């Protein structure tokens, strides 16, 4: 199969194209340049592989969580590329892609979520399969849930150096292996996406959406009014 992967959720955007065992790849550094150069990178890997969009089997994109604008860039790009040729899309979660880097184990995947919070989810990886143990959440590090299963675990975090000391002590103490500066590249999406594709876990472009996890982004008019009341008590 010929699989294109697009990942723009973090600081280093990348695209990867796999054909058989060969992978072509492009990396773009720095947030500002992502959008401008993303399609040139897509075009470049396609050209190197001697392919056109229409001949792809599927397109994978980094669905998040991550920088909101980056998540939409990857999603909208995948949608636009896929639309005219009815290609299936494969959304791949950032936390899944991090967890997959740990090997066979119970894994806590973490990613910096700004505002002093982190994204988190527990997984179990066995026989090359990733099983999700908890739903992804976004919280202050102190509130990251304890492991849902017994035994030692691995921790794979993205941009977690500063938040690490604030994780619950039992989580830190029980970790066999800890990586706090992991990154997710388009290349990392390929393996998970191939499996998802083989198992029919794909979506058409009109059902593809980023996975923000942080869903509360504004106060409703009622909440704003309540907040004003609390700040300005009646005279």
């Amino acid at each position, binding site marked *: 199969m010929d699989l294109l992967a697009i990942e723009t959720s973090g600081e280093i955007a990348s695209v990867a194209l796999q054909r058989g065992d060969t992978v072509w790849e492009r990396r773009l550094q720095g947030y500002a340049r992502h959008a401008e150069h993303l399609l040139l990178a897509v075009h470049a890997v396609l050209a190197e592989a001697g392919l056109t969009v229409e001949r792809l089997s599927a397109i994978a994109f980094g669905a998040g969580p991550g920088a909101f604008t980056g998540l939409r*860039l990857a999603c909208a790009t995948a949608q636009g590329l896929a639309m005219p040729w009815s290609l299936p899309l494969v959304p791949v979660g950032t936390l899944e892609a991090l967890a997959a880097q740990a090997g066979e184990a119970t894994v806590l995947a973490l990613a910096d979520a700004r505002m002093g919070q982190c994204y988190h989810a527990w997984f179990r990886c066995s026989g090359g399969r990733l099983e999700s143990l908890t739903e992804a959440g976004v919280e202050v590090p102190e509130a990251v849930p304890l492991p849902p299963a017994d035994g030692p675990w691995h921790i794979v975090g993205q941009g977690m150096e500063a938040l690490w000391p604030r994780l619950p002590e039992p989580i830190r103490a029980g970790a066999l292996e800890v990586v706090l500066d992991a990154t997710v590249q388009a290349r990392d999406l390929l393996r998970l996406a191939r499996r998802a594709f083989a198992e029919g876990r794909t979506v058409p472009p009109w059902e593809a959406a980023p996975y923000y996890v942080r869903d509360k982004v504004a106060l409703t008019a009622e909440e704003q009014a309540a907040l004003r009341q609390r700040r300005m008590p009646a005279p």
Partner: protein
Amino acid sequence: MHILGIESSCDETGVALYDTSRGLLAHRLHTQARMHATYGGVVPELASRDHVRRLPALVREVMSEGARDWTELDVVAYTAGPGLAGALLVGASFAESLALALDRPTLPVHHLEGHLLSPLLAEPRPEFPFLALLVSGGHTQLMAVRAVGDYRLLGETIDDAAGEAFDKTAKLLGLGYPGGPALAALAEQGDPARFALPRPLLHAPTLDFSFSGLKTAVALKVGAPDWRAEYAADLAASFQQAVVEVLVAKTMAAVRATGLPRVVVAGGVGANRRLREALAEAGAEQGFAVFYPDVALCTDNGAMIAFAAALRLEAGARVKWDRRIEVHPRWALEGLRQG
């Protein structure tokens, strides 16, 4: 030639398919107004989230209703600015990617040019040159339009846009968001002479507008100790009258200054019934004809983007092949040159 038009600059997702020989083949619009109403105004992040969820389905519907095969598309046009950066980026990434997949070029379109040219989609179609009165939620401008791409700004608001003033005043009167249409409806039942409100810049020698003082005057009335809820319709009517008088007076002054025989009104406030009446009277008196887009195309939509692209191409504009996804959240229409 078949042009797909995509609009996502603010809180409306619009898609249209335009055929240069047969006209508009299909168009679809999804408005987010109800979602934002809960928040009392447009929340940019939520607007962007909605665009990326809606866009592909709208495109699919338009292509199937237009009964055109993907390979028949010649150009993908999209709003590249001005507007909300994140919202624009959704449309731009989708459009540029779609074009790459089809090996076709794109044409980034200026949102206001879309509004400005939308009355040319209606019948009767105004001839160039004309005076354009652009009255929307974000803009209030008078422009001399000599040809596609030849726009000279004659005057604009120095603070709030006319639509913005309608919306803010509606909020003051508890009419929700965006309350412009509701305010206009309430005004129908009120007495426009009941409250004396300012006519900002009415007698100023420029063609500029100012509406924030008017909104403040309304706020003072509503906050006064003798304010009663049953005055709302009269205040709405008085407010609407003040806005309409200023818009019409400046339009007449602009016609006098330029000698342009036609006035084209674009943007959401152009749906206002009182404004339409007053402009018709002014036109009859001063000898100019007034043109409007179809009601469905007054607010943001994809048809005006596809159509503006068609006119630009006809006028010799070069298409874009560089595959860069770039948006211009702030972008002056005057700076737009053909080419």
